[in-house]
């Protein structure tokens, strides 16, 4: 054995965690609450499924405290599909995350859709072998999550509404802030880091490369193939769809249509074709009509 060779396998490295998200690019991750739904999602071409107890639209309608899913339900979904299975933990709830890791989920979403467990701290994600995805409304928030160990970012929308306006706002915000960093001279980046409340080295890296160091998907309020394609044109590298599929009239067909529109996001001919005859989209709630206290995207800091 040569001393230069390191044949011992190392799990949970940054490259393995961020790399997993690279493999999901161009794909659609679908919220599912049962093993049957997970199977429908896989058959429709989902790149992964997100296991949760209630989709955001129901969390919104029913209220109450929303938590990590029942381990039996997660086991059932893991057994039902061969694609990656993600699951949500409450913001700051590191024990829910430990449980999800022990169940063998492939990615944990530390999610504002659930009720936060800690209003000051997020989970220290470096302590885990399983990778994490976190939501962000702006660049500073994204960089703080990455500093805590997030291996993937999703721009936040307003989950459970079917209203895409917050998703576009936050994606434009993050992309705009990245472009602005790119136009700054090196000495201005110190103040930029202060204002973003993010580490200088990370800010400089984003300024130099013009992108986040991790994959960025979009989430929240995406209900149609055109919504998904618009988010891809705005710079998302893939799409999370929550209530939009299984709260619609024809989930299997809509799921497949959103997958196709995400791949051919720049081809209006394809988007038109897959948008035909989909039946009813989820009913939808206008974000502007939601009281501030009911807005999920504002959770997380």
């Amino acid at each position: 054995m040569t001393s230069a060779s390191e044949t011992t396998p190392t799990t949970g490295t940054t490259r393995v965690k961020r790399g997993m998200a690279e493999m999901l690019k161009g794909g659609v991750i679908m919220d599912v609450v049962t093993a049957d739904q997970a199977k429908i999602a896989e058959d429709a071409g989902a790149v992964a499924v997100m296991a949760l107890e209630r989709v955001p639209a129901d969390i919104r309608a029913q209220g109450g405290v929303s938590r990590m899913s029942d381990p039996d339900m997660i086991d059932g979904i893991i057994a039902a599909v061969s694609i990656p299975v993600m699951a949500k933990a409450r913001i700051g709830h590191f024990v829910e995350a430990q449980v999800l890791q022990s169940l063998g989920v492939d990615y944990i979403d530390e999610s504002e859709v659930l009720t936060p467990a800690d209003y000051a701290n997020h989970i220290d994600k470096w302590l885990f072998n399983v990778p994490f995805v976190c939501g962000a409304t702006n660049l500073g928030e994204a960089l703080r999550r990455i500093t805590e160990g997030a291996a993937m970012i999703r721009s936040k929308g307003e989950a459970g509404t079917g209203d895409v306006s917050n998703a576009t706002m936050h994606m434009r915000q993050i992309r705009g802030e990245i472009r602005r960093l790119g136009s700054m001279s090196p000495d201005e980046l110190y103040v930029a880091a202060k204002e973003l409340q993010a580490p200088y080295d990370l800010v400089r890296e984003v300024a130099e490369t013009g992108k986040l160091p991790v994959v960025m998907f979009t989430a929240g309020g995406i209900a149609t193939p055109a919504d998904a394609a618009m988010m891809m044109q705005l710079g998302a590298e893939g799409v999370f769809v929550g209530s939009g599929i299984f709260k619609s009239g024809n989930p299997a067909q809509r799921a497949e249509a959103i997958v196709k529109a995400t791949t051919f996001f720049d081809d209006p001919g394809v988007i038109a074709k897959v948008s035909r005859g989909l039946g009813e989209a989820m009913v939808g709630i206008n974000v502007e009509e939601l009281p501030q206290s009911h807005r999920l995207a504002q959770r997380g800091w």
Partner: protein
Amino acid sequence: MTGPTIGVLALQGDVREHVRALESVGAHAVPVRRERELHGIQGMVIPGGESTVMDKLLRAFELFDPLQERLREGLVAYGSCAGMIMLADRVADATADQRTLGGLDVTVRRNAFGRQVDSFERDITYAGSPPPMRAVFIRAPWVEDVGPQVEVLARLEGGGFDGRVVAVRQGTLLATSFHPEVTGDLRVHSHFVDLVRQRAQ
């Protein structure tokens, strides 16, 4: 001399990483999502991603048959991870209706090393040449059995999963369980582009 034009299947997966690696070894990389984009390419990369998704989209957009035809005619191709699955004749743990483009006389097992928490990186020896290559395995497949025409380019030695085959070549087809496109080690892409150049002559 300009490099060969190589298509990267761009339906889903880590397309950008392969494009960057190919360009770094002097090839001209173009994304392929439609049949017409197959014209003019001298090689094809099938990236990492989800093999079930690639299969469905290949069929839905009528790219499956034309691409399979080109491969059978001798188009040089390289697949990493999901790409390896797509090039295998046989898949263990496939979904019910999963199809592959095939061409490699091997059986590949999906997610063979376990779930994402088991994903790992380690050093391997590629094609018998030092120095060691850092290889990243992400929910990776392994090659379970190989036909007589298949050349094994790398297998794991020591460190668990001893003897498992993780890189193979058969004629114009090259495949790895791991992702050289995410490490910056360009030897696999350079080997592939050499195969494309040889074929073109």
